[in-house]
């Protein structure tokens, strides 16, 4: 069983501080939904409101169509995986997993059996008798998932569950998590500040900043069509060029930047004279002057070897504005720091947005 989750004008305040401001969204049953945003933007707050540890200051949380107001965490069809896992260190692994069943007064033999099944699901058979402290980080991670799945929740809530793992394990667990979600078929609500994680695993992503949901969409959608400068700068790498709009037509706008007038798509309908930011992703920049304009004359600041590609940092002639892009190793051979270089990009792949908050690196 899986259920959909609806946030209806959900606002959460701590005193005068607004941790979550008027969130409205519907998460379809059985989907993998991520909240993505920098630390402190209110992600944990959302999860705690859905799981029942926080009461809404305004608005409603509905699960499977039912308003959750007044229903405590132990009676909601959700299970929460805590940021620090919060496994019970004094219980054996299998007792941890079976704790939810113990609460439901399932007889011991059955509990053991179910714990065994779940240990197999998370690929940790025969580890049930160990203590949690005897497991590695990745194994604990999986035990936390099994403990939550044991109570057969309709919605599983995961609070940055991979943030404590090292890179290799994190990459492995992403795939693993997605696979588990598809096997059990319940709704996963996943929280992360790592856009790579969100892009890889999610059906849909909500990007947040300072308690406000900025945009909701699929991974490719928010990557290709960011609605706000925050989303454009937070999701993936982006070069941002601020300036006034010099000319605009239905499809495109030219922004007067320190590299001269540069053109990009104009989905927000910017008009001449508006303050705007033009976003150019590193991967759309190509060496050479091109044929469609949008050429940036610049100086090479630094070159970083990155294995499959090289990362190049450029600046304008005054050395003011940095741009970065990646290029193949062969192309990079022809570039060295201190030299002039010209790069260009297609106006159809850059995007101009009204001025607004940017994500900080």
């Amino acid at each position, binding site marked *: 069983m899986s259920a959909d989750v609806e946030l209806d004008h959900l606002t959460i305040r701590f005193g005068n501080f607004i941790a979550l401001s008027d969130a409205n969204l519907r998460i379809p049953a059985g989907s993998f939904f991520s909240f993505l945003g920098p630390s402190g933007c209110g992600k944990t707050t959302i999860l705690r409101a859905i799981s029942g540890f926080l009461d809404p200051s305004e608005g409603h949380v509905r699960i499977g169509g039912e308003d959750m107001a007044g229903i405590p965490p132990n009676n909601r069809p*959700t*299970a929460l995986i*805590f940021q620090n896992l919060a496994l*019970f260190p004094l219980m054996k692994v299998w007792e941890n997993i079976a704790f939810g069943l113990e609460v439901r007064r399932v007889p011991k033999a059955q509990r053991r059996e179910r714990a065994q099944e779940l240990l197999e699901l998370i690929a940790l058979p025969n580890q049930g008798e160990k203590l949690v402290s005897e497991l590695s980080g990745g194994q604990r991670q999986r035990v936390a998932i099994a403990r939550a799945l044991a109570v057969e929740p309709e919605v599983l809530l995961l609070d940055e569950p991979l943030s404590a793992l090292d890179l290799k394990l994190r990459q492995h667990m992403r795939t693993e998590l997605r696979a588990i979600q598809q096997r059990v078929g319940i709704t996963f609500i996943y929280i992360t500040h790592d856009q790579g994680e969100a892009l890889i695993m999610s059906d849909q992503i909500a990007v947040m900043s300072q308690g406000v949901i900025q945009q909701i969409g699929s991974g490719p959608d928010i990557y290709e069509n960011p609605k706000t400068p925050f989303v454009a700068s937070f999701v993936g790498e982006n070069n941002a060029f601020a300036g006034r709009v010099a000319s605009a037509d239905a499809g495109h706008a030219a922004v007067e930047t320190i590299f001269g007038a540069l053109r990009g798509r104009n989905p927000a309908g910017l008009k001449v004279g508006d303050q705007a930011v033009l976003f150019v992703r590193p991967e759309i920049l190509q060496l050479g002057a091109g044929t469609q304009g949008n050429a940036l004359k610049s100086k090479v600041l630094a070159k970083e070897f990155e294995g499959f590609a090289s990362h190049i940092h450029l600046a304008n002639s005054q050395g003011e504005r940095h741009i970065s892009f990646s290029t193949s190793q062969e192309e990079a051979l022809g570039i060295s720091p201190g030299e002039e270089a010209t790069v260009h990009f297609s106006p159809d792949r850059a995007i101009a947005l009204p001025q607004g908050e940017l994500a900080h690196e």
Partner: protein
Amino acid sequence: MSRVSDFFAEFIRRNGVTISVYLFTAVIFWIAVLIILPQLYMLDFSFRFNLPPSKIGTEEDVRTLKNYQYLLFGAEGNPNAFNWLHLEVFFRTIWAAVLVTILNLVICYPIAYYMTQVASGGKARILILCLILPFWVNEILRAFAFRILFGLNGPINFALINLGIVSEPVEFIKADVALYTGLAYAYMLLMIFPLYNAIESLDHNQVDAARDLGSPWWRIHWRVVIPHAKPGIASGCTMVFMLTAGALAAPQILGGPSSLWFTQVIYQWFYTGGNWPQGAAYAFVLLTACIVFVLAMMRVFRVSLGEIAK
């Protein structure tokens, strides 16, 4: 051996010669002169006859088990098989100390849990102050205050009668209610602080996790909080039990006319009876019994000494 000398070398390097010498002398003085030596004297006393000073050191001054036998069997010519008068006081004292310890735990656990896991920083600090301040009042004064509180004409009886709950004043002192309450109160801080320390180190997410998995509050305590706090519970219970069993002022002041505390018997041997060897023997029996009892309890609840010291 080299580890011991390493330890000393490191200790001296870290603290300097003067401070190291001072610390070692102080600790050795404290342990040897203030703790071990007088206790050895007492122990020796307990195996001797109660002789007038002129006879000490003469051939009559020999060792004996008589003082211990007396507690078990009474004076020669006792018509009963055992010295029931004193044995009963002894066991009642142990039993009452157990009850007081449990009462104390039941009162202090929720307070400690509230202070560490529920209240915010400011509220918790005020609560701690409220708990500590009353202990500035000395023990005797507090005990007499309880006597007034629970007296026949005391405020509690006054309230009960005026509320129509009872028609005659309740004899709290005779029923030892005042004694148990007073004892529980006297050593409350020694229960609160170990509990506070133990529960404070519990990650509140564990409580939330248990709740999220559907656990009712009592099972959260039974399966998560209490196991975590076990060393603190053991250490608090040990201290409260030992001190309660060895308390003198509170039983003296708050005890009913018919109820004697074992320490009062010991006191009587030393002072009224002028029989120090007998008193020392009684005191050692109490001490040994308490230690054995505590160790047995730790066995039952599977706590190790190391954990308690944490």
